[in-house]
């Protein structure tokens, strides 16, 4: 009788451990997936920028510096590695793009061009995608980090070396409150 009880307990414990372990793996996978999603959206932005700069070039003859900043920030972002550096470079790129569109406001011809309007929609959408991907990634990281720090998962996390994952930090509080980008 005691043997059966013991067996039941052992089986139950093993099942619980398997369940917890799988939950950890699932959460970790979601983080990796979330990070990959950010990457996809960042690439999308890199691809849009050369076109944008090309279109704007003809109109913005006296604003060479703004355009160069965008191109430079783009290159920096492409070259960046690691969560922290990447976040910093991307934030810089976002702000240079913002100043580009601020400058565009002074050029009615360019502002009204059909080409630029379509590009603006593309870019607004991409900015949203990036911030949403980042937001989703951070949500996943929070779930995962909480899980590996709380009882009972923390015991398993220690045994199988589940490490905490870094957040994709935002530049300042202002951006945190309004991640939406509007060039209008």
């Amino acid at each position: 009788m005691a043997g059966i009880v013991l067996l039941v307990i052992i089986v139950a414990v093993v099942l619980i451990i398997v369940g917890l372990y799988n939950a950890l793996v699932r959460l970790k996978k979601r983080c990796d997936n979330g990070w990959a999603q950010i990457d996809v959206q960042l690439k999308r932005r890199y691809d849009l920028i050369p076109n944008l700069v090309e279109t704007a070039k003809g109109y913005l003859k006296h604003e060479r510096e703004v355009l160069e900043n965008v191109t430079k920030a783009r290159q920096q972002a492409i070259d960046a590695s690691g969560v922290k550096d990447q976040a910093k470079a991307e934030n810089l790129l976002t702000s240079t793009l913002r100043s580009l569109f601020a400058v565009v406001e002074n050029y009615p011809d360019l502002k009204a061009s059909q080409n630029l309007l379509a590009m603006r929609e593309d870019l607004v959408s991409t900015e949203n995608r990036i911030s949403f991907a980042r937001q989703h990634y951070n949500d996943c990281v929070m779930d995962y980090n909480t899980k590996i720090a709380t009882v009972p998962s923390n015991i398993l996390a220690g045994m199988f070396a589940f490490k905490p994952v870094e957040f994709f930090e935002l530049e300042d509080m202002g951006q945190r409150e309004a991640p939406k980008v509007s060039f209008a």
Partner: protein
Amino acid sequence: MYNEIAANKRNSWILVVLVTAVLVTLGYFMGAYWGNRYGGIFLAVIVAIVASLFAYYSGDKAILTMSRARRIEKEDYPQLFDVIEELTIAAGVPMPAVYVIDDTAPNAFATGRDPQHASVAITTGLMEKLSRDELQGVMAHEMSHVGNRDILFATMVGVMVGSIVLVSDFFLRGVFWGRSGGRRKSVGGAGGAVFLLIALVFAIVAPLFAKLLQLAVSREREYLADASAVQLTRYPEGLAAALEKIAGDKEVLEVANRATQHLYIVNPIKPFEKRGSSLFSTHPPIEERIARLRAM
């Protein structure tokens, strides 16, 4: 959100059980009235199973067809697709099928059984009236219904409530107009009259019960979807402004009916219409929703 998903799955099961119970009881009395109780129960169980399976697998298609929604692709409305694609990233769900209803009345809804089989529909009127941010708020509300699995429960309620109403309508007609034929082997005497009475009461009460169920579920759900939408966009004003525009519009959406009204972001059946009534409202007052959003 995980609790929401579990609750919606559980509620869907409860709905299936409840609807089956109602149908079986109805079937019992109908059978008794026509002289075959077990036949009535048997038929009711078959109807319940068919209705449940149909509601689960094809409820979304039935609702979209009923609402005269047509499927669109990215080329048709690029900005709408952009907005929805952005939100799928935020919510971590696959891209839903996108439908448009050609109607100037502003409204939108989501349906399907899970995020892998989800559809969102929006009227052309709403698309024209909203700015990009407002459109994002509305679609975020719909994507929240998808993510929470509200769509599963709401779609099943729509289809199953519809089927109960259909069966009792059928029965009521059978009782009122079918008796003149005198073909039926009715249980004679006072016993038969009692059965008939119970069956009649049930046939009248059943749709009412179904209606109550429908509205019990959707009021809280709207507040929750509003809140989840803000969690996605982090911009309450977008949805608040959109709701304001929809509330200020007096146009009527003809394709909406009693079985589908609870799906819409704002009740498509206006109180001034004959078919509307505040007692059976499936939505919380829109002013209250806007106020809650602005307070976030």
